[in-house]
């Protein structure tokens, strides 16, 4: 690899042009991984294992050994990412290799199984590995698409500014609602007392909050104000306008939370599943040679 395309390598060293870890060094690791996959598939087809392909054949052992070494190396990204460096073995290069070699593991490990799957610790390890890879794939997908949406949604506000905007509206709502009778004041209070960061994980990921108290308060309020003319001095009109603003602000905040959640959620699968995989892999290897 090192001898190929020296010009590009130099440029990568100098970091003149920015390209992300996916395009790093002209897709060097994508090409490498593709080559590995093609070689694996071709050898799987050509090698005649008796009676049929399985993890215990010489081909199976080879694939299994490559697979486990790859898994261990891929896991090391967790350590490597804490030290950012530049150059050929920069963190970016490492991440690029992590992504593409990780994807090639789908082929290597599947060929290692010889397509023999069942309800056992061996398949457990395989399933966990696939879970790790697929969650990683999801991670790449959101990293590639969501940051732009996140930036657009923020409209140059920081997170704290977003929160402060909600707080300011809340204070105004609180003041404006003071003259209201108790039942109407209770509606406003519901909106105030609902945590904008509340809601289940599902609500966070979908961005849908069907029990939004602000929306409910506004709907109920409009029930009263709907058939009255806007005289300009009805406190309900002012509250309605405030609730409108709060809803808009909440929508922006919730979109922000949703995008951030999507950017984070895969790691909650990727990392624990990796550790589970290492455990299952240990059990898989020990069991195979224990009852060998």
């Amino acid at each position: 690899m090192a001898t190929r395309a020296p010009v590009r390598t130099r440029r990568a060293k100098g970091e003149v042009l920015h390209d992300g870890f996916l395009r790093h060094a002209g897709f060097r690791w994508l090409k490498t991984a593709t080559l590995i996959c093609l070689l694996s598939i071709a050898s799987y087809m050509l090698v005649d294992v008796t009676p049929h392909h399985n993890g215990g054949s010489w081909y199976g052992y080879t694939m299994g050994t490559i697979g486990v070494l790859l898994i261990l190396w891929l896991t090391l990204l967790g350590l490597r990412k804490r030290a950012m460096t530049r150059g050929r073995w920069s963190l970016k290069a490492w991440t690029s290799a992590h992504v593409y070699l990780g994807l090639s593991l789908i082929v290597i490990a599947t060929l290692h199984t010889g397509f023999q799957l069942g309800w056992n610790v061996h398949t457990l390890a395989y399933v966990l590995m696939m879970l790790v890879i697929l969650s990683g794939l999801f991670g790449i997908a959101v990293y590639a698409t969501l940051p732009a949406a996140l930036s657009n949604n923020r409209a140059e506000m920081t997170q704290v500014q977003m929160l402060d905007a909600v707080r300011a509206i809340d204070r105004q709502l609180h003041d404006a609602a003071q003259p209201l009778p108790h039942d109407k004041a209770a509606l406003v209070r519901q909106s105030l007392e609902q945590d904008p960061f509340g809601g289940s994980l599902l609500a966070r990921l979908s961005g849908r909050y069907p029990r939004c108290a602000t929306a409910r308060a506004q709907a109920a309020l409009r029930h009263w104000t709907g058939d009255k003319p806007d005289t300009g001095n009805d406190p309900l009109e002012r509250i309605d306008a405030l609730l409108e603003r709060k809803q808009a602000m909440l929508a922006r905040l919730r979109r922000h939370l949703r995008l951030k959640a999507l950017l984070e959620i895969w790691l909650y699968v990727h990392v624990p599943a990796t550790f589970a995989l290492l455990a299952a892999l240990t059990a898989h290897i020990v069991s195979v040679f224990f009852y060998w």
Partner: protein
Amino acid sequence: MSFLVRQISLTADGREIVRAASFDKGQLSLGRAAENDVHLPDLALEPDHARIEQADERHIRVRAMGTLGFGLDGRTVLRAEIDTAMGAELRFGGHRITVSRDEDGTTILSIRRVDAVSEASEEKEETKVFSLRGLLPGKRLTAWGMALAILVGFLAIPIWSYASRPANDTRNIYKLVGDKAWSSGPLSQAHHALEGRCETCHQKAFVSVRDSACQTCHKDAHDHAPASRIAMARAEPGLGGKLLAGVAAAFGKPPEGACVDCHREHEGAGPMQPAPQAFCTDCHGTLKDRLKDSKLGNAGDFGTSHPQFSALVQTLPGKYPRFSRASLDGKRMDDSGLKFPHDIHLSMTGGVAKMARTMKAQYGFGDALACKDCHKPTADGVRFLPVSMERDCQMCHSLAFEKIGGTVRTLRHGQPDQVIADLRAYYRSTGPAQPVALGGMARRRPGDYAQGQIYHAWFGAVAARPSRADDAIRAVFSKGGACYDCHTVTPPGANGNANWQVLPVHQPMRYMMNGWFDHAAHRTEKCESCHAAAKSHDAKQLLLPGIDSCRTCHGGEKAKADVPSGCAMCHSYHGGDGAPWMPADRSAKRDEVDRPRNNRGD
């Protein structure tokens, strides 16, 4: 008789600001409305929420105006009487009112807003609320939890289960679960009773399954060949095979040739699969290259690389027959000692067919004779019984020579001495007074041949009209006589014989001694599709089909033939006389085998 109301609020930097107001009256109103004495801008309160009254010198009474009530020392009440000397804490919505009393008897109400205006206004930790922390258990916790659970469930428990097995294991296999998760697949039908008892085969940890484990039960498995010859016969493994052998040796696995090399387990429930062809062709595919002295041809695949069959044929018939193995290539001869033209018997026209038609009702013949009319299968249907004169020929070829009362006397088949004796006795007792109406086979009339009809067997004797027993005997044994038509007869004097001799007939039931052919499995085929009997005019012609005939349906294990056939379909590795081992998946067919079959379709 007065109240001191102290409203305490906090500045942004946490400093307290106290605004005090004195009320010199016995009752204070409290609520959200601005006109109240104690105005608390709190949406949780009603506009006119409560009254605070001086009850007596030491006590005040607090009473809610609506139904919402207030908190008193943590409980929600609608009214309360409070000893100001003792003090109390009241809670109105987001406000806390501490009740106390100063030295001159003034009731002090210290009011403090304790809840923020809204939930959003509460203090928030940015990194926490804007992330998924709090919504999900921590990554580290999940990671270690899952890893630990897997190590316990799939490593520790199985090992513990292995270590804690009783020496005399009589546990129910369905209750053993400890190391079940380690099994790479269910065991085959035959070994199902061992499911969960891993140590039956995997006797020691980290030691591969040994032949001795198999031989605990399979005590009588033959060796295929002497171990030294097998070692010589095995092809040099490829690069991969060497790698595997290296790994195997490094982990202490015995060299190739172990039982488990061919008999793979954990390949799924159901019948165990026969050993794949590749296990045989490792040696036999190029056997000649290594075992120069072998008489076996190379066999790599039935469809493409398999030598012509060799049948065990009789080269010399007689009392001491001689056999030799002969390839089925070219014209094959097998001399059983019998004379028999298949073509005449199977012809659709001619005397035999005519005769068969007249016997339809009695013997179930068709318009002409068919194979099944003379050849009867063995009970298992695999082969055919030798043709028997009494059962299969005599209905046409009668040996009767006299009728006494209602009883027909016949010559004894297979006992020439008895034939001679019987004939002599016949002449001695009756004399040839009346020439008997006899004829050779060619001259019989339909209706006059069957057993039970009076009818002479001494065909030649008829023509000669013998007057003496010796003439009759000579006639029977000579050309044109009853015996001579089917048997090779030697007259007295030849070869030093004192008497007439009939060459013994030996009909083999099996020609392929190292391969297995099962007629029952080919019941759907017609006999003629393999055996060209209708064209054979000489019993010496061997009617066995060659390999080409088989290959019209059978191909190698992975061939696209109608019947892909691995080596194990016909050959048995452990060299027994019986059928090669096959998966027992044909329960229906086995039922049929058990039932006797009288009339076979083929």
